[in-house]
């Protein structure tokens, strides 16, 4: 059972007041939690990697809780989420896929059973690689006002034998959302889609 060795973390919060239109009060908040961990499978093809998903669960939970904290501490204010991973050059894309279960379920647990699939993306990259983490509404993936993305990254990560793991949460729609589609107020919230 490989240990989860964290080298560094980054948390960031954006408060968006306006984007040329009416000022929003309270501002939209978007939070990011990043953890840079050693990739236990770097440098060779390892057939059986799935057990590492369990090892990552405590880290996922910790990051999800830190996001709620960063957004003010009340899970009820969280409306959007997403996740992603950047795998260093000595690893495989499949290593990034190890984050789906522990990252996604941690956020749902902390948010009290969010219904929508957690939007995600992943890539292989070097230090300084940027990743656009997609965001959707936590209970209904089709809510158009909540389609969003946050760019994340760290100047010195991931090194070749590392993985950069990302979770993101937001408190609402895009700051001046006005292109129609399913509204958050119209959600049935049964199937995670509408």
């Amino acid at each position, binding site marked *: 059972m490989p240990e989860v060795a964290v*080298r*560094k*973390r*980054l948390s960031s*919060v*954006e*408060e968006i*007041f306006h984007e040329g239109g009416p000022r929003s009060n309270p501002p939209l908040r978007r939070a990011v939690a990043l953890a840079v961990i050693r990739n236990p499978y770097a440098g060779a093809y390892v057939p059986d990697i799935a057990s590492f998903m369990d090892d990552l669960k405590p880290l996922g939970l910790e990051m999800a809780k830190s996001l709620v904290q960063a957004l003010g501490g009340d899970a009820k204010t969280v409306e959007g989420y997403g996740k992603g991973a950047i795998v260093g050059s000595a690893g495989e894309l499949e290593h990034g896929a190890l984050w789906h279960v522990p990252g996604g379920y941690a956020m749902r647990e902390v948010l009290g059973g969010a219904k929508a699939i957690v939007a995600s993306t992943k890539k292989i990259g070097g230090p300084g690689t940027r990743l656009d983490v997609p965001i959707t509404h936590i209970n209904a993936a089709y809510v158009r006002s909540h389609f969003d993305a946050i760019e994340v990254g760290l*100047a010195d990560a991931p090194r070749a034998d590392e993985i950069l793991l990302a979770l993101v949460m937001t408190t609402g729609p895009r700051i001046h959302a006005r292109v129609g589609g399913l509204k958050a107020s119209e959600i049935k919230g049964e199937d995670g889609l509408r």
Partner: protein
Amino acid sequence: MKANIRKIAVFLEETQTEMDRPVNPPTRRAAAVAVIANPCAGKYVEDLSELMTIGEELGELLTQKAVAALGIPGNHAESYGKAAAVGENGELEHAAAILHPKLGTPVRKVLGKGAALIPSSKKRGGLGVPLDIPLGHKDAAFVRSHFDGMEVRISDAPRANEIMVAVAVTDSGRPLPRVGGLTKDQIKGEDGLR
């Protein structure tokens, strides 16, 4: 508030290991960045006092945000730095007007002290431009373990008529400092240098 703030982003970075050696306690640095409208964009303005006033406001606000992210009392901060990136319709001198005349006093007020010069950098750039905020010990500029820098960027800033203003504060120096020089326990803290 005189500044028209579009968004504020706060970053908190924590390094827990370096080359597999534990960094104990972890080194932590925080940066708060405001994206504001540049009232002098697009034309030559002789009197930059409006920007100086904005610098004063942001000095207090951003230092408070950075210290809050670190979760420490202001007087526990160890190093600091400031930086600004001016969008393409502005002048480098606009960054200077924000950073140099009035921003430092409120920074020092929030941190209790701050005998040393606040190291700074500035540039003109487009959206997503990285800002390397130089860091130095707040009471003695020659403390070698605290010579450092923190990279921040915001993917959608600065727009042409905006300025990104950053203040960084740490509760520590580099992760495993070992290149000698003045150490923090040798500080006299009188002249801001040693």
